[in-house]
């Protein structure tokens, strides 16, 4: 079961210069909310920005990670 800290680290390792703030919404290790700030989002649509975050987790989203709510910012 991933922790909020695991999710944060995976995002920050995968997306250039990302700073992530992750909450475990239920305490159950399967519903998370991530706020991610990265200059790598610049010039991309909101859908593309969210896909970049989902792509960090591959099939884990929809699997062990039941829900990952995302908010992205460039700065």
């Amino acid at each position, binding site marked *: 079961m991933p922790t909020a800290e695991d999710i944060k680290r995976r995002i920050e390792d995968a997306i250039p210069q990302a700073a992530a703030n992750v909450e475990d919404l239920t305490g159950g290790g399967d519903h998370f909310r991530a706020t991610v700030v990265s200059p790598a989002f610049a010039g991309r649509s*909101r*859908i593309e920005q*969210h*896909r970049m975050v*989902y792509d960090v987790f591959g*099939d884990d*989203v*929809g699997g062990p990670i039941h*829900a*990952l*709510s*995302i*908010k992205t910012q460039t700065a």
Partner: protein
Amino acid sequence: MTDENTQIRDAIKAAIDENRVILFMKGTPEQPRCGFSARTVGALQALGAPFAAVDILPHPAIREQLSALSNWPTIPQLFVDGEFVGGCDIVTEMYESGELAALVGVEQPAEAPVAAEPAQAPPLQIQDPPR
């Protein structure tokens, strides 16, 4: 891809083409089975925008084929004019900024979301929006 999956994917594409605003969700607008689907339905209902709704829960293959088509891993998923708009987070942001009202072509409500009369949507069926 199996024949069955091809059929499901074609049916999803047809539904997206035939319904200007269509939401793939868990449960129905009357009985959402997930908080994220409920919130997305709430935004659409607050706008008073007619929308078609498809419950993806009865058949896992619907969700698999939908996600393959949209390249988006989670439910709900909103499509407008044949284009993927986003999931709960994006739809909520767009509702709050007024972008969603502009996209579906309605007035942004002045007040906080008020649940409109739910549209009739039997589970398992793709529902045409009211004309």
